[in-house]
């Protein structure tokens, strides 16, 4: 039985790491393992790869990997809710054998995005109005841009003056990429782009380390997003002591990070060097994370209609919950292997066969229109050659393979009691068949024989008993159905003639 094997190396029941090994139709594919910069990775010619828009961050894609008729879709990170700068992930009904989906938010169904945006803006606005500083730890690409656009337009509309800063260098870089790939952004930015590039911010400026000590309100976007190191942590340490300030965590935080600790309500943090940092600033969490929520994951599954689902990038407990939901809802198998654990999925690939046009036309001319639900019987020759299958008419097959045609004929003698002369018997048989087989061409030939389509019937008197006539019925193998029908018909005898 053909099968697909999946072994997560980093992403099994785990968040933050990745890499998954997939074996499909004898090919091994490594997913999410980072690029081989500078190398031109050879792609097997039997391997088809198709990318789908995934939202999440600029340029994010979901991949369909296909070998023959077996296919796997790997989602990577995706987002089913459009945001201020990107559209929503989309996939067609590609019905893969396996859908490997991330499941970071396996147990969350988010409220309307607009509520979150409003809350976010309100919190930032209030803090700034009372003279506080707002720290928003972000990762370089993605949420950062979304929130920048959100704040930028808000500042513009409300005519606010407090400065907004962004970690040095990143804005310019991002801006550059957004200019390059404007077609990958959302409807609004694409439309606006005709007049101006929305990523050319008016209110957001590059951040300098010295600014953190400036008096007065400000908003700073700083990396990294989980407050575990770098600039965001430095600023946090500076501002944590003032209750007027606020830190807004817009996304997920891994256990053990400062971000996770303060979100869990910890107010005293032990920093390196046994130093204790007391957190007085307000801590807010807002799920601006660009991962699909449970409903989004379900929606993607519904759209793609996979035969199996495999969850990665998530916490085991939450995955278990979603797995149950998926199996219940879609009646497909759902897997969630741990790192190093191999999942084997049996597939039942259909095998494509090329049919010759002539044969197809001939077959469709005979039968009614094909019906999706009913299997159709076809008469032809299957040629398997060079790893390909072709269905052609028998004549063509003979010609191509240089074979002579042999004919297989069946003949059958049917005895009929009829004292009349031979040609009279023939005439009676002819009339009888003509009467019954209205849809067939029944002919009486001058040489005294009868044909029904290509089946030949001849009558001779029995050599010993003149009152018995022997009907010789002869047909080819192809006409077996009609031939055997005819003989059984004739064996029943002729009707009593009325004359």
């Amino acid at each position, binding site marked *: 039985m053909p099968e697909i094997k999946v072994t997560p190396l980093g992403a099994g029941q785990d968040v933050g790491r990745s890499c998954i090994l997939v074996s499909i139709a004898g090919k091994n594919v490594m997913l999410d393992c980072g690029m081989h910069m500078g190398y031109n990775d050879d792609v097997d010619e039997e391997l088809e790869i198709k990318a789908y828009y995934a939202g999440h961050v600029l340029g994010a894609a979901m991949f369909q990997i296909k070998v023959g008729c077996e296919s796997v879709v790997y989602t990577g990170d995706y987002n089913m809710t459009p945001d201020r700068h990107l559209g929503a992930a989309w996939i067609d009904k590609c019905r893969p054998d396996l859908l490997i989906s991330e499941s970071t938010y396996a147990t*969350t169904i*988010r409220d309307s995005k607009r509520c979150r945006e409003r809350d976010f803006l309100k919190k930032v606005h209030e803090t700034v109005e009372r003279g506080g500083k707002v720290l928003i730890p972000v990762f370089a690409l993605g949420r950062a841009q979304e929130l920048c656009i959100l704040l930028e337009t808000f500042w513009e509309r409300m005519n606010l003056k407090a400065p907004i800063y962004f970690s040095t260098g990143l804005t310019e870089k991002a801006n550059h990429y957004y200019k390059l790939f404007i077609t990958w952004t959302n409807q*609004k930015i694409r439309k606006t782009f005709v007049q101006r590039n929305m990523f050319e911010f008016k209110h957001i400026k590059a951040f300098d380390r010295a600014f953190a000590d400036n008096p007065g309100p400000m908003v700073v976007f700083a990396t990294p997003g989980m407050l575990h190191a770098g600039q965001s942590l430095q600023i946090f340490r500076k501002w944590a002591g003032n209750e007027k300030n606020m830190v807004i965590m817009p996304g997920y935080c891994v256990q053990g990070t400062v971000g996770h600790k303060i979100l869990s309500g910890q107010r005293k943090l032990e920093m390196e060097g046994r130093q204790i940092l007391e957190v007085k600033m307000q801590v807010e969490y807002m799920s601006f994370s660009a991962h699909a929520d449970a409903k989004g994951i379900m929606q993607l599954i*519904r759209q793609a209609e996979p035969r199996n689902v495999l969850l990665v990038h998530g916490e085991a407990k939450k995955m278990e919950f979603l797995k149950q939901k998926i199996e219940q809802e879609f009646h497909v198998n759902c897997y969630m292997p741990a790192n190093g654990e191999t999942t084997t999925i049996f597939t039942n690939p259909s095998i494509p066969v090329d049919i010759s046009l002539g044969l197809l036309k001939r077959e469709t001319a005979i039968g009614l229109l094909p019906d999706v639900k009913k299997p159709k019987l076809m008469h032809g020759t299957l040629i398997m050659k060079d790893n390909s299958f072709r269905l052609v008419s028998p004549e063509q097959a003979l010609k191509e393979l240089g074979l002579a045609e042999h004919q297989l004929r069946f003949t059958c003698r049917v005895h009929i009691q009829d004292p009349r002369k031979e040609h009279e018997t023939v005439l009676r048989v002819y009339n009888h068949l003509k009467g019954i087989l209205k849809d067939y061409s029944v002919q009486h030939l001058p040489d005294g024989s009868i044909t029904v389509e290509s089946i030949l019937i001849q009558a001779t008197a029995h050599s010993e008993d003149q009152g018995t006539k022997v009907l010789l019925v002869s047909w080819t193998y192809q006409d077996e159905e009609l031939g055997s029908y005819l003989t059984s018909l004739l064996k029943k005898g002729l009707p009593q003639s009325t004359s």
Partner: protein
Amino acid sequence: LQQQHEDLSSKKLRLTKPSKSAALHVDLCKATSPADALQYLLQFARKPVEVESVEGVVRILLEHYYKENDASVRLKIASLLGLLSKTAGFSPDCIMDDAINTLQNEKSHQVLAQLLDTLLVIGTKLTENPSVRMRLVEVACKHLTDSSHGVRNKCLQLIGCLGPVEKGGAKEVESQAAKDVQKIIGDHFNDQDPRVRTAAIKAMLQLHERGLKLQQAIYSQACKLLADDYEQVRSAAVQLIWVLSQLYPESIVPIPSSNEEIRLVDDAFGKICHMVSDGSWVVRVQAAKLLGSMQQVSSHFLEQTLDKKLMSDLRRKRTAHERAKELYSSGEFSSGRKWGDDAPKEEIDTGAVNLIESGACGAFVHGLEDEMYEVRIAAVEALCMLAQSSPSFAEKCLDFLVDMFNDEIEEVRLQSIHTMRKISNNITLREDQLDTVLAVLEDSSRDIREALHELLCCTNVSTKEGIHLALVELLKNLTKYPTDRESIWKCLKFLGSRHPTLVLPLVPELLSTHPFFDTPEPDMDDPACIFLM
């Protein structure tokens, strides 16, 4: 080259004069190649033909039709026949038989489809004559087995436009025929070609538009089409389901995989809601639009559309409300607004919860945050229509509507403001909502601001502070955009007359703190109207 051709033919026309048909005949006889003949026909098609010569021309065309071996020329002739049949004042019954006869030996599918189109034209001109329609429908039925989608497509279109729709009673036979037509069209819901499936659904809709009462049995068939691979099919199916929900709102349909039942309109509502998160935005727009006109839907289904989290469980009638509470309190899914509430709580009886697949939940939440503004506008419109007929829903959807005031696309903002104005009789704004509404006064688009002024004219505000806030913001607006003067005064006047008791205590404060009011002009308008009350 084109020029030359025209010269030549005009000369010829002058020479051979007597009638149009004769001229055409001569031209066509002269044509040495199919390309030539096509050229003549094209030129001929550009000129009008008088009513009295139509029949003659048709006869000539038919004569050539039979002689012509080239399919493209026959195709052109077939289309010309249709064009001529449309001539005002011409009654095509005299050529109908001939037109039907042409179908008999035609081998080209394209020409066949064109001929059927011509028959459709003839049929639509002779709608008064039931026997003609009957005959044409019969012809169409015969060609329904054609292997080309184009032909089947046209056949279905013809049946849809000409099929019998007479109501039973007068003649039993005819109502039987009407049933049969639905059966024939319904059989093609499962055609292998998506274009034919679409045509079949459209034909059914056409019958409905012509006054035939569709059978309820179609409903289950139509529901299956919602899962079709092709967006055109799904889009048409959504329409058909909507039609049926309007015809049989109170019928009871079973819920699959349970022994419970539900009103058809509620079921249809749930299904169409589901299509609001379809993969194709065309379908999403269609679905969102139609939701607006389903006012008969039960209120608890309607309210689900604003909550993503409830999922589908409310479909079960009896325990609906209890379960809703359960879902909330057990925190089955977290909302993502609070940190840490997404840890799975104790398992509730999952067997009883039938998730996502069905149901109206969150349809509008999805629709309002769709990536395409077309869908968002459609959702806002639908919200408006539903809110107009249900005050309780109006109250509930207010938060969502207010949020739309901050949409990134101006058209959506404008539409939301208009919508809010239309339902303003049913609602009273809370202060925080008013806050968001008023923030839009700073919008740089004048259309938006004026729309907002209009909205404020007829808004109910709950508190004195609210009114005060509104006045302050309006004044800010006046300073920022002095051109809005007229509009703002009008707005203030209505606001005042609507909330006399709330405004009264504010008067002294307004007069003292805002010397602006003392300038002659606004003084006339604003305090005047307040004192009038």
